[in-house]
């Protein structure tokens, strides 16, 4: 028998036996909606948690030369930026206070950081241009504090012993996670000068242990006390634990929902087979093979299951959207496929039973 005609017969049978078909629709819809509302929410929560754990602020590694031993050279900063675990990296100098060059010592002080590395890695230029030697860019907050309306002007060190000044050539906004730089100015660190810290934004929190080890190897501090490290290593461990726990919980719940639903589909299909044994016996007598009977019974279940999956998925998406925890689309597609697979698999035992029944017993009229 041609496959499309088997499908035709199966769908006609499903339509003719509306009660068991409706029960399969309801069951599979419930399986899909329940899976999305429970396991799907877990998956959405896991995704949201991982997003938060993986935000730029949660994956920053800072190694500081607290003893000022000139351990962090510009070359080391450049090498750190090139590591595979590094999304971006810059070296920073300890901030110095600067004042409006026109006003002088009496003016409001704002911090100024010397930066070695790509300035676009830490800031977005809003106006003007990137600074060269003895030039700086300022944040809007810093300009307001300095009393500068536009990006024109200059600043000088607010120091009684040292003198240095920078022309303001641009306005910036700090990029995450360098929000602390929003308070002041940025200027290119003098060429060749050792930095006080290297700040690395990692590709993910999970690579923190490896990145930390790599950075420390590059710096090669003479003693552990020479450096201060701020690292998301513990955060990486937390991320792994949370992911594992949520995945295990989700898997158990999914198996329970699909298992219970599948069992009920088996019962409904078996009941339908028993009610239709005369029909199935007739088909065998007229030339249907055992394989055709199995296909008819399974497809007759899969047809309504498809409708149920569509309805249940729609309902599940609506519910999870209302609760603000919509699962990823890959999860939704996977749920539909699993529900259909569970329904089809659950129909196989009754199908085999139907295919192996003696048709003569049901055809003989007493």
């Amino acid at each position: 028998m041609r496959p499309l005609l088997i499908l035709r017969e199966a769908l006609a049978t499903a339509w003719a036996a509306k009660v068991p078909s409706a029960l399969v629709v309801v069951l599979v819809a419930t399986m899909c909606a329940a899976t999305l509302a429970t396991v799907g929410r877990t998956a959405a929560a896991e995704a949201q948690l991982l997003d938060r754990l993986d935000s730029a602020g949660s994956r920053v590694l800072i190694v500081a030369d607290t003893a000022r031993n000139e351990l962090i050279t510009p070359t080391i900063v450049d090498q750190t930026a090139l590591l595979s675990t590094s999304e971006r990296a810059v070296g920073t100098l300890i901030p110095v206070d600067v004042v409006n060059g026109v006003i002088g010592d009496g003016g409001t002080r704002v911090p100024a950081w010397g930066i070695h590395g790509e300035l676009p890695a830490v800031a977005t230029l809003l106006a003007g241009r990137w600074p060269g030697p003895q030039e700086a860019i300022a944040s809007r907050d810093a300009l307001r504090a300095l009393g500068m309306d536009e990006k024109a002007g200059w600043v000088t060190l607010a120091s009684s012993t040292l003198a240095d000044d920078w022309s303001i050539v641009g306005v910036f906004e700090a990029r995450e996670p360098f929000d602390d730089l929003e308070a002041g100015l940025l200027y290119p660190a003098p060429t060749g000068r050792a930095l006080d810290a290297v700040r690395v934004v990692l590709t993910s929190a999970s690579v923190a242990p490896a990145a930390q080890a790599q950075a420390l190897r590059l710096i090669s501090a003479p003693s552990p006390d020479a450096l201060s490290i701020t690292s998301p290593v513990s955060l990486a461990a937390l991320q792994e634990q949370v992911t594992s726990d949520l995945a295990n919980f989700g898997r158990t719940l999914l198996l329970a929902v699909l298992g219970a639903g599948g069992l009920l589909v088996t019962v409904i299909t078996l009941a339908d087979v028993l009610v239709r044994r005369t029909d199935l016996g007739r088909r065998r007598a007229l030339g249907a093979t055992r394989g055709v009977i199995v296909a008819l019974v399974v497809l007759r279940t899969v047809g309504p299951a498809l409708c149920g999956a569509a309805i249940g998925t729609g309902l599940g998406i609506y519910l999870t959207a209302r609760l603000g925890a919509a699962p990823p689309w890959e999860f939704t597609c996977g749920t539909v496929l699993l529900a259909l697979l569970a329904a089809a698999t659950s129909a196989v035992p009754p199908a085999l039973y139907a295919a192996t029944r003696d048709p003569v017993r049901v055809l003989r009229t007493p």
Partner: protein
Amino acid sequence: MLAVEDLSFAYRKGAEELFGGLTYEFTAGAITAVTGPSGRGKSTLLYVLGLLLTPNRGAVLLNGQDISSAPDTVRSRVRAQRVGFVFQDSALDPTRTVLDSVLEPALYAGSTLAQARRRGRELLNDMGLGSRADHRPGEISGGQAQRVALCRALVTDPMVILADEPTGNLDRDNAARVLAALSAAAGSGEQGVGRTVLIATHDPFVIEQADEVLAL
């Protein structure tokens, strides 16, 4: 050509064997009535010949070939392509139209839907039931249902037609119509050879009309 050789069958191990080693050659182009007291295996013989049951001993030969011991898939294919069944209560699908019931064996035999529909309509028209094609079995009479069942048995142009008490539930007029249709079917086989038609019956009217009688 349909024949049996040393045929015996028992429903259970140790139970009484039916047919007692029957050897018989059924005549193509003729109606053979299979008769006997109740319990002698009239219907069972038809189911064995129709390859729904496997004999304990002996063989069912179709054109000289033993098909009774073939695998189920082969027997199903032979049943679909070479054998037509007419059951006592017509056994039409109450949820489908008359035409869908007629074309069912053709689909199992591998026909396309269009081919099967064309053949089905031809047969229904020949039987005077063309206007009933889109009706359901519950909307036609018992005699019409049995003639629809005969159309179903003929849709694949089979070599053999097995009818189990086809007139059991019919009045004399309808029984005569069905017998006439079976007789026409017997005479209209492929390549002018005629079909082998077997009727399991205890109806004296049918036995009287048959060309041959096999008493079990």
